[in-house]
């Protein structure tokens, strides 16, 4: 099965060991073709709307990234997880636009 034919992985927020702050509201995963043409994953890490710019620079974001990428590797996922970090309202706006 080719990478783009594989089902998308799903992650359960409740089972991931994520820090309390900044608070992750949702993880959204979609297919993504990177600049070299590879079939990979775009992982949207969607934070609470109250997340500040300072929160985005906190060590907690690193913990979130590590927990998500480790979980995907443990699931046997070999597609690369290209992460994006947004607030809920930014993500909604993007989906609407």
């Amino acid at each position, binding site marked *: 099965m080719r990478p783009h034919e594989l089902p998308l992985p799903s992650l359960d927020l409740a089972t991931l060991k994520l820090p309390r702050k900044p608070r992750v509201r949702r993880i959204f995963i979609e297919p993504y073709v990177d600049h070299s043409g590879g079939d990979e994953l775009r992982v949207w890490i969607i934070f609470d709307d109250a997340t500040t710019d300072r929160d*985005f620079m906190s060590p907690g974001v690193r913990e979130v*990234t590590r927990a998500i990428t480790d979980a995907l590797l443990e699931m046997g996922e070999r597609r690369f997880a290209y992460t994006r*970090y*947004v*607030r809920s309202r930014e993500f909604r706006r*993007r989906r609407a636009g």
Partner: protein
Amino acid sequence: MKLARQSERLLDQALHLAKRDRFRPEQVNLRRAVSGAYYALFHALVEVSCVRLAGPGPRTRAMRRLLARTYTHAEMQRASRAFAQGANGLPPDLRLALAGSEVSSELRELAQLFHRLQDDRHEADYDLAVQWRRGDVLVQITAVGACLEYLRRERSARDLRTYLTSILVWNRLASR
């Protein structure tokens, strides 16, 4: 380890651009910030790798300069992708070179970041349809800062030494 001032300045500039507009960030500033963060990491890796391979000090400066021009973005990205998956992502010969040591979580994060940021830089520079968010850019800049600190602090780890060699000769290593 002393890192090139160039990398520090590129990262400072990226942060300045990302924070420059108080309310609604200009996309052009965020794009340049992403690009600057990528090049801060790129140049830091090349410099540390060259020092490892050619040696430090003024007597090897010319060789380091020459060597620095031979790194390619694509090869560095391929090596980074493999290291991002840990020891299991590496070819068997290279696993032997690690002599049983694991790829540390810090090195995996660095490799993931380089791989990811190269794609981000490509989008930032070439795809004007992509709208960047300040928070997202700040995450990348902060992560690059942590990686520069790791490169500065870490001196002798076998996994890092192996990675810093691999980013120059990955194509030949991986095809053995």
